């Protein structure tokens, strides 16, 4: 899922500052799961903002609304009435959601309330880890299911660098060395021979380096 994190209150306050009627729009999918933009977060943020504005004597009306997914028209449409009533929208969706809302409502500023962080996994309660960079060409099969492109700080494809110590990456003591994990996995799978394979340079054209991507499923288009 896409992991995001709510922006600091001060920043949100800054960006919504110019508007008088604000809709805080939540998204019930990924950002809800990572507690950045579901119903609860919308309510909490709205409450906090109201307190800020009340304290500063500003009169800003705040409305709350949450839709199932902000990246899909059918759901966005449900918010159109609420959006119409306001002069700005603070979207708590991921960047895709913010843009999807923005492109549907040309005349209303859509502001991001969440920093979209990465594609990740709920590792354990309250801990999210980045696991995928969306490179567009998955090669996890040879890496024993651990992605060196995302999880190795140097995107190394042919084994660990010299900075790995006790399975920890040189970048941060909180970061496991992806290559350590790959090696362990391959050992457990009996595929250590993969380590001897030379992995040729990554073709980045399928990733974001090839410009914004577009996926067309011809079979779904009529």
């Amino acid at each position, binding site marked *: 899922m896409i992991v995001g994190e709510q922006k600091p209150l001060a920043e949100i306050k800054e960006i919504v500052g110019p508007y008088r009627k604000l809709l805080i729009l939540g998204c019930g999918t990924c950002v809800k799961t990572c507690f950045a933009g579901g119903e609860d977060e919308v309510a909490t943020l709205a409450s*906090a903002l109201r307190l800020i504005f009340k*304290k500063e004597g500003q009169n800003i009306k705040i409305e709350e609304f949450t839709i199932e997914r902000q990246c899909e028209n059918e759901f966005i449409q449900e918010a159109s009435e609420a959006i119409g009533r306001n002069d700005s929208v603070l979207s708590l969706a991921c960047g895709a959601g913010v843009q999807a809302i923005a492109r549907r409502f040309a005349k209303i500023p859509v502001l991001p309330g969440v920093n979209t962080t990465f594609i990740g996994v709920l590792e354990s309660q309250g801990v999210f880890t980045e696991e995928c960079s969306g490179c567009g060409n998955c090669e996890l099969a040879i890496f024993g299911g651990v992605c060196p492109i995302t999880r190795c700080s140097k995107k190394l494809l042919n084994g660990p660098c010299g900075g790995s110590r006790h399975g920890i990456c040189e970048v941060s003591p909180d970061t496991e060395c992806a290559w350590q994990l790959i090696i362990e996995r391959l050992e457990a799978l009996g595929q250590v021979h993969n380590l001897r394979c030379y992995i040729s340079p990554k073709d980045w054209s399928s990733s974001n380096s090839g410009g914004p991507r577009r996926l067309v499923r011809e079979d779904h288009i009529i």
Partner: protein
Amino acid sequence: MNKPFKPKITLFHCINSFNESASLSLNGANNVEIKTVRLPCSSMVKDVFLLRSFESGADGVLVLVCPEDQCRYVEGSIRAKKRVGWVQNVLDEIGLDGRRLSIRNTSSGNGATTDKILQETVAVLTDLGPNPAA
């Protein structure tokens, strides 16, 4: 006319941690105005409830929960504490001062302790003055 400040406190309490009859004596105290919200478990305190209490004019919010090892739901008190901590930070960011919100562990039926906690809370609030966002 300078009326003495009489803090309004919203008291969230776990029904297991806090004896209702003890609260009656607190309600009688005249230096404070208390609104109580009973929770079946303190883990039902959501961030938004705490903030909304301030929105609706509370000068302070006090959360009374069971001691951590006595929660009937095992994790309720711990969760409540974490949420309160989170909201304290939010209050600091808002500029309301996180000290307006506090969480205390009380074991069931100990009226004397709750009285003391309440007086301490009142003291803190007297220090901080009325809720600027009320």
